[in-house]
């Protein structure tokens, strides 16, 4: 994914952040948030590095990473498509929306398309219940996604032209 030069830069950035903290071990979750922001995901090597730097067992780091759904150990695609599965969306057709997205992207929820363009995930409630069912692409909410045509149009905006 990343060459050694940028990887070095990432490590320096991460170390700089950890050094700036007054409390280190206590801020493990904050450190992981920061690391995921720069690396995009948390591979074993990054977890190992954080464990060394904070002087805690790597099992503790892995324990926290695997506990919280926000952290991922698999790289995501260029665009992350999320289906809200909160109750309001559920009763207004979130399952159908998820099925349609799986159909159009030809992947299951939790997977990434072979061209690395889209990752399909689900999340719980973004508070846009008035627009249910909603899908979220790279943080932007698209509401009332009941028709296959509408879903297709939204996805098309994120596909490279031609």
């Amino acid at each position, binding site marked *: 994914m990343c060459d050694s030069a940028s990887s070095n830069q990432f490590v320096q950035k991460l170390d700089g952040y950890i050094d700036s903290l007054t409390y280190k*071990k*206590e*801020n*493990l*979750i*904050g450190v*992981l*948030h920061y690391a995921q922001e720069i690396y995009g995901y948390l591979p074993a090597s990054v977890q190992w590095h954080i464990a060394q730097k904070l002087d805690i067992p790597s099992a*503790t780091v892995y*324990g*926290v990473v695997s*506990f*919280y*759904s*926000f*952290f991922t150990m698999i790289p995501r695609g260029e665009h992350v498509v999320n289906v809200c*599965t*909160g*109750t*309001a969306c*559920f*009763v*207004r057709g979130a399952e159908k929306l998820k099925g349609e997205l799986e159909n159009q992207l030809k992947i299951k929820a939790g997977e990434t398309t072979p061209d690395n363009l889209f990752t399909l995930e689900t*999340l*719980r*409630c*973004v*508070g*846009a*219940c*008035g*627009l*249910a069912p*909603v899908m979220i692409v790279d*943080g932007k*909410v*698209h*509401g009332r996604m009941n028709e296959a045509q509408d879903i297709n149009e939204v996805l098309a905006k994120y596909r490279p032209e031609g």
Partner: protein
Amino acid sequence: MKLKNADTLNALKAQSLKLIETRRVTDTVSTKNAQGLVRHVMVCGGPGCHSSGSPGIAERLEEELNKQGLSEQVKVFQPGCFGFCEKGPMIEIYPDNVTYCEVSSEDVTTIVEEHFIQGNQVEHLLYMDPITKERFATNIPFYDGQLRIALRNVGYIAPENILEYIAADGYQALAKVLFSMTSLEVIDVLKDSGLRGRGGAGFPTGVKWEFTRKSPADQRYIICNADEGDPGAFMDRSVLEGDPHSVLEAMLIAGSAIGASEGFIYVRAEYPAAIRRLQIAIAQAQEYGLLGKAILGSDFCFNIELKYGAGAFVCGEETALIHSIEGARGEPSVKPPFPAQKGLWGKPTCVNNVETLANIPAIILKGADWFSAVGTEKSKGTKVFALAGKVNNVGLVEVPMGTTLRQIIFDIGGGIKQRKTFKAAQTGGPSGGCIPTKYLDSPIDYESLTAIGSMMGSGGLIVLDEDDCMVNIAKYFQEFTMDESCGRCTACRVGTKRLYEILTKITEGKGTLEDLENLEKLCHIIKDTALCGLGQSAPNPILSTLKYFRDEYIAHIVDKTCPAGVCQSLLKYEITDKCVGCTLCVKKCPMSCITGSSKKRHVIDQERCLKCGACMEQCRVVGAIIRH
């Protein structure tokens, strides 16, 4: 500028009043007469309106006003949520107090031309009653029966400007607590007010504060629980985004009453806008000497730090939340000891929910009697509900405790979508239950909801209609709790999985009456043996649906049908003799299991049918394809 004492705060308030005086509803003038006055346009920045493009509308308004040379006279603001999400994006114009609904950026030129230049209301953007077709410029029925205490400033002030908060009596309660009340008096006011935790369990807030204060320690902590995990509830988010200073002020009050000098706000990482608003609010409060050392010149010191969640529902449970702040897995621990005795880093800690905190400055300023005059005997004040699902007016409503479900769903909520029949209201999220029609008129408070097998929870209120299968709803919540179970105790880790498996079996038509018995038995075992509140309440959605909708379970098991037509495995699609033989369904069927030639009645091969319903969606002849 650091505020040195209460007098400088008051002076700043007096100076800042002009920022919001245009918006005082008591000074409403007609749209014609408002011509020439300074006007404020409030563009709702709530999660719903934001998602449907309100920032773009605000930008377009500013552009257009600028173009017409009106930018000095008409100011555009983006406050928090107005609550009426169904009709978003919404804008409100003061001092003429006119609300426009479902505004798009194409409407901006018309609004500027008609409203601001000509002085006429834009008729087609006013709220229209769906039944009487009457238009409302103001006093929309959605807001009748609502009382805003926790949400008093949300949608009214610009959340990124501390001066607007100060103008709206902000930090006055803090000054009162610091200079004219003892800590015991503060706790007494809270106890007398009857305020109870709005996060779900409903523990009296004043008592919690007293416990924490009484625990001997050299350090105590205040935590604001902003880990709003209940799917379908977004009131805490609206407070954080629309009125972040009220939460900070309440934490300061708590700190001074309890004897804590440090506070944490544990907020979901999924709420980036709320996090940004909190960061701005904290920086402003520091700048004005309302956070940090010698607050308002007193000897009280207090700091607030933000901590981010990482997507774990269980972290809404206070002991799990504390472990998460400590940087560990968010697993709950056995109570006692309660956090009030031994919490964050082993020190006495008071954990309060966002909505609970938002009420506190108002209670301190207006007094316990004022607050306790609202509500029922045991549940005082108001409660914010996130009304969603199959209801006409989806939105955020704040009503006095004791309001009935019927008032919320039919008066405020405008009834059921597409004139369908109400079936149940789901309250309390994954820890709550489904309330059937017969309890529509019972007043809502902590006790009455528990008595009918549901709970207040954080305030999600999802309306279900005739098209919702109650077994499927129970399965949905079970899938949620199974996913979110932290795995610490066996009852919840294994139990919720077994419950989910039994429910899946039933919805697939493979269930037996013995399964139903086991389901009920297991629910009670989990309720009695799970470690934390989340595990103990996980079976509630099943127990309440079993209690009120047992016939639906029986239909799935004995008759192998889903009365609401939801559970796919139990459905059957058939082509009737109304079929004209257009072959549309033949082309659409993903399994190619429909046979029939042009202009002849088609037949579905039931053996191979997936029950996807694609044929029925395609069919243009009413009644040619039926589902049963």
